């Protein structure tokens, strides 16, 4: 099993969720994060003092999946999250060893 972590622009969340639903992915966990990267933040001037706002709001999506579904999911995320402008974000894939569904105590792929 694999875990996909995707960092995306906040306003793309609905689109990404829909794209994933369409390929049958119905479980995911989402959190609000701040991103720092090539996309530069804005400058706020607060009554004469200038502050650089480096960290930009991003959304992190975590999905755990059977190995076979990873490629499709990554493709769905990339195509739905893309705007072509800097700061679109990243997708990371890593390995997961075990999954348990708390409710049923099922394990492995059955738990997804």
């Amino acid at each position: 099993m694999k875990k996909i972590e995707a960092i995306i622009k906040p306003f793309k969340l609905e689109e990404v969720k829909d794209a994933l639903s369409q390929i049958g992915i119905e479980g995911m966990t989402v959190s609000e994060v701040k991103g720092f990267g090539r996309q530069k933040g804005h400058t706020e001037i607060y009554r004469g003092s200038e502050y650089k706002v480096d960290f930009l709001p991003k959304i992190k999506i975590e999905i755990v999946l059977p190995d076979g579904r990873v490629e499709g999911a990554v493709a769905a995320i990339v195509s739905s999250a893309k705007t072509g402008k800097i700061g679109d974000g990243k997708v990371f894939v890593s390995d997961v060893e075990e999954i348990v569904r708390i409710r049923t105590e099922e394990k492995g792929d059955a738990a997804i």
Partner: protein
Amino acid sequence: MKKSLLILLLTASLGASLTATAGDPPSVKRAEPSLEQRVADLEAYVNNGQRGADAISSTVSSKLGRYDEKYNTFTPNPGPGPNAWQMTSAALVLFMTLPGVALFYGGLVRRKNVLSVMAQCLLIAGLVSILWYCCGYSLVFHKGNAVLGSLDFAFLNNVESSPNTDYSCWVSQNVFAMYQLMFAIITPALIIGAIAERMKFSAVFLFTILWMFVVYFPQAHMVWGIDGLMNGVWNPSAKIHAIDFAGGTVVHMTSGWSALILCLILGKRLGFGKENLSPHSMTYCMIGTGMLWVGWYGFNAGSAVASDVIAANAFTATTLATAVASFVWPMAEWLFRGKPSVLGFCSGVVAGLVVITPACGFVTPGGAVIIGVLAGLIPWFFCYKVKGWFGYDDALDTFGIHAVGGTMGALLTGILARNAANGNLATNLKSFVTDTPLQPLVVEQLKAIGLTLVLAVAGTTVIAYIVKALIGLRPTVEVETIGLDLAEHGEEGYHA
């Protein structure tokens, strides 16, 4: 330690004050008023004039009050309209501090310090009330010498529901005392803006006590006390023939200049210039701004101590100047910075209110509009440019708005005061108000500005170093990092 200091100060203040010598009442018993006199008294009520019986030498009594034949004393009654307005105004001025200033300033600090600002506002409200009750009102509004009143009204002794005709013929003196208390509360509360996020609570406590005695009480007596040194309108023997309708010097200059000194002595916030110190809730700041504007009608129009023609003028001038300044400041921002910010609008509102404060009872609508334009531009320039040049950390711009605004307000009052706006100017200031921009009043205003500035700066410097020596001004780095809320008050502003 704190205690002995306080006693010392108290005694010092008192030593300075003369014993009030009330003129002896005439020994002849007063006559019952004739029907004509009774009607004249009623007309006086409507017109905010004096009863026939109000003059101490009067030989007639009045039905609008109580005559005590035994002691041959006449105790006037308050009037329902002015009393209603004064109670409303007092409540409005309290509203400016709680929760007005608490929100305005509380919104501008970081999340971890919001409660410290609120705690300081609340502390000042309680503390100053107690001082006011014990001796503050007396030191300011009882007759004394030109600099300080006496202690004869201490513990509000003899301050009752009948008017003190030195200040108003138709407003209860105890209501007047409570109204003026609200001014005494908001003034030190304004200082908080400059020292936010980095002053120990205990230091704020001690500083406030000392500051009231050293700066506020004398200043308020000099400007508003019936025998005050700078009470140009009502004291014919004032040394400085200056005017200050609702507290340009008493409230804004004292707090603003003291704020600058204190924030310089205190030093900058940790992370100043490096970290993002932006407001944790601009919405709170905006809510506070709305409350300040609304409450300020009590502050300015209430300062007429009557709901008469002068209050009406003050109400109008306040509205116009504030609205104009609230517009000009963000427009300046839009032009020079590219975007009009809500903080800009709010700053404009407060700047307008501050600058019109000393002037509102004395200027025409046209004068108020001129004041509004300048109030939108000059403090803006100070907050956006001058502060940057000098690099002091006036955290929430108490100096930029209140000191600069109060000072220019005092000056503009000198330039724009007109007899047409306030008939009282023709009494003791006939030769000073000539209805021209360079009338002699301007010089008197400059004198008042100078004296106020010296008192505030010198007083605050001394007090700040005393407090620093006694208990220290700043919390530890760790406390400042964690935030004053958790460290000093054991609570957080928000919980999920």
